[in-house]
């Protein structure tokens, strides 16, 4: 059985179920308990779990993440909300030098079961300091897991897995996805395993390897190409970007021979580069055309709506990339 609920409600269910299941799970962040979160994603949690386990904090991101790491070392499973992903920058030492390194550096004496929730992405002229997708920084930092849901179903399954993970896990949730509705299984133990990609659309002519909000844009492109041009595009939703599902990537290349990689984060230095390099190293013989990467332009996100909409890949750009891949190699 499944129900149709919003992405925001899906995260709320995940929180509720994990907090019921494990009394050591607690949540902290700015303006979350009394206000219920900017996207309504924490509504009602204090009623059930109290203000001891659902904590409003001062504007002190370094303390939030730092104390989250400390609490994780000492027998709890903290979920820390960053308000906006952009403010992770205010707690980089705590995340990069502490959370990511302690287990390895201290000879596996500890685990850091911390979940960091970070609403990210470009939306509604929020401007340069409230529109970033910073995930590639954390893929580059050994010791962290990075998951990025694309749907309500992903949102629930990945958040539950993040909370249960014994590693520090960043959970990037796109601001524009919160109101979107989707089907979510009823099962209380529905989990999406960390490190496993999903083929969300079959296709033989090309594959778009993507994650997060760009999965929807890729599906839109694929539908258009199937309908109007008889081009049959597969779409792979990575769901986790570290650890990457390299096997799923290799399988998709072998099945389609033409690859576009798409994300909303800046293309230069982005996760797409790691995937493209892997394909070049390990799947070269399967390719019928050079790999194409799509991502935002190498600029901060501008405020003006017309500029904002011009600098990251939307469905028409993804469709054009697939069309070119197919045309060039026929």
């Amino acid at each position, binding site marked *: 059985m499944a129900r149709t609920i919003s992405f925001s409600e899906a995260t709320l269910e995940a929180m509720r179920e994990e907090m019921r299941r494990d009394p050591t799970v607690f949540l902290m962040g*700015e*303006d979350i308990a*009394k*206000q219920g979160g900017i996207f309504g994603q924490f509504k009602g949690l204090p009623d059930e779990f109290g203000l001891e386990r659902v904590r*409003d*904090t*001062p*504007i*002190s*991101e*370094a303390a939030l993440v730092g104390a989250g790491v400390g609490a994780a070392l000492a027998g709890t499973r903290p979920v820390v909300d960053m308000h906006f992903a*952009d*403010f992770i*920058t*205010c707690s980089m030492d705590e995340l990069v030098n502490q959370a990511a390194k302690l287990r390895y550096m201290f000879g596996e004496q500890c685990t850091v079961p911390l979940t960091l929730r970070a609403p990210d992405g470009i939306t*509604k*002229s*929020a*401007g*340069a*300091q*409230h529109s970033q997708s910073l995930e590639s920084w954390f893929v580059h930092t050994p010791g962290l897991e990075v998951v990025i849901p694309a749907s309500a179903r992903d949102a629930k399954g990945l958040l539950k897995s993040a909370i249960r993970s014994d590693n520090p896990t960043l959970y990037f949730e796109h601001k524009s996805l919160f109101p979107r509705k989707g089907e979510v299984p009823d099962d209380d133990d529905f989990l999406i395993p960390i490190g496993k990609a999903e083929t969300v659309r079959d296709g033989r002519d090309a594959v778009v390897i993507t994650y997060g909000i760009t999965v929807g844009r890729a599906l839109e492109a694929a539908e258009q190409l199937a309908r109007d041009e008889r081009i049959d595009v597969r779409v792979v939703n990575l769901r986790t970007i570290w650890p990457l599902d390299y096997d799923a990537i290799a399988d998709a290349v072998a099945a389609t021979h033409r690859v576009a990689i798409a994300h909303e984060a800046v*293309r230069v230095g982005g996760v797409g580069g790691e995937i493209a390099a892997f394909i070049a190293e390990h799947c070269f013989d399967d390719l019928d055309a050079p790999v*194409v*990467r*799509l991502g935002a*332009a*190498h*600029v*901060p996100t*501008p*405020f*003006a*709506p*017309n*500029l*904002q*909409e*011009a*600098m990251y*890949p*939307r469905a*028409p*750009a993804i469709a*054009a*990339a697939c*069309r*070119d891949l197919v045309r060039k190699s026929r």
Partner: protein
Amino acid sequence: MTYTLAPAAPLAEGEIALGKTLLQMMVRIRALEEGIERHFLAGEIPGFAHLSIGQEAVAAGVCAALRRDDYIASTHRGHGHTLAKGAAMKAMVAELFARSDGMCRGKGGSMHIADFSIGMLGANGVVAGGFGLVAGAALAARLRKTDQVAVCFFGDGATNRGPFHENLNLAAIWDLPALFVLENNRYASTTSTAETMKIEDVAIRADGYGMPARIVDGFDAVAVHHAALDAIGRARRGAGPTFIECKTYRVRGHYIGDPERYRTKDEVEAHKSDDPIVRLQARLAGELSQGEFEALWDAAKSEFAEALSFARASAPPETGEAFRGAYAGDRDPETPHGAFALREEASFAPFFSDAPSAGTGSVH
């Protein structure tokens, strides 16, 4: 430390002119922000906008004590500071409307409004983003051997972040020509400040860094101004930074559209009498006729109306602007930055909404 708030007595004769100047500035800020509120709600202003209605005395009082070449850094709630520092209202409104004639070319908006021509180093989307900018600007003034001063405006919430503490200490140990102006409006977003600090007067935090601090009635533009004048004089003389806590209140929502579930209507109503415009008008008593007061308002409203027409007549930025401006040199195709900007623009151009046909074209 003990602090007392001065009762709002009628202004002394020597202060009448000052009082009128401050009143005029507050009325201009109010007219600007009431206009912003209307046009935001009408859907003409994209993004977020935070209003400083009720807090104008701080911007007006402090900035009237500054020179054009002094620096200020602001917050997400920065319209008042920007206007009071001397920015042109029309370029501000054009910026909020995301137009090419906006002071940031439509790339900043309300939350990142800035006017470097008058030393206004920007509103800031990151709480506590201004502290370092101000400490650094003050350091640069010292190194360049000018007598410029740098002022940081910030909220109570910002004083719970590390950069507040680090930069106050830095400014204090180096005797930097800086002024730290706290607008304690009792809330940080939806959270009452009483819940995020154990102290009533944030000013005592300055003590910990050996920085002199004062508390002033933040609804009283004249009181704010006097405190700022003293502090700025001290900074210009090389005697070091000062902290001023302005006790004020945010009567509007945190942002335009805030449902304000975190406080009662009665609480907000109780602060209506603290309106700094009403308060200063009262202190000017017999020295300002109703006609003069209305003339101030008429002038401010027509200034906004002109700014609005200017903004509406201004075109949106050209789409290619999206790809330029991050780097010095990126408008010159001969530089590496400029060459790359051209490539980026070319790859996205087929998909611009005004592109001839959003069809083929490759993305790298």
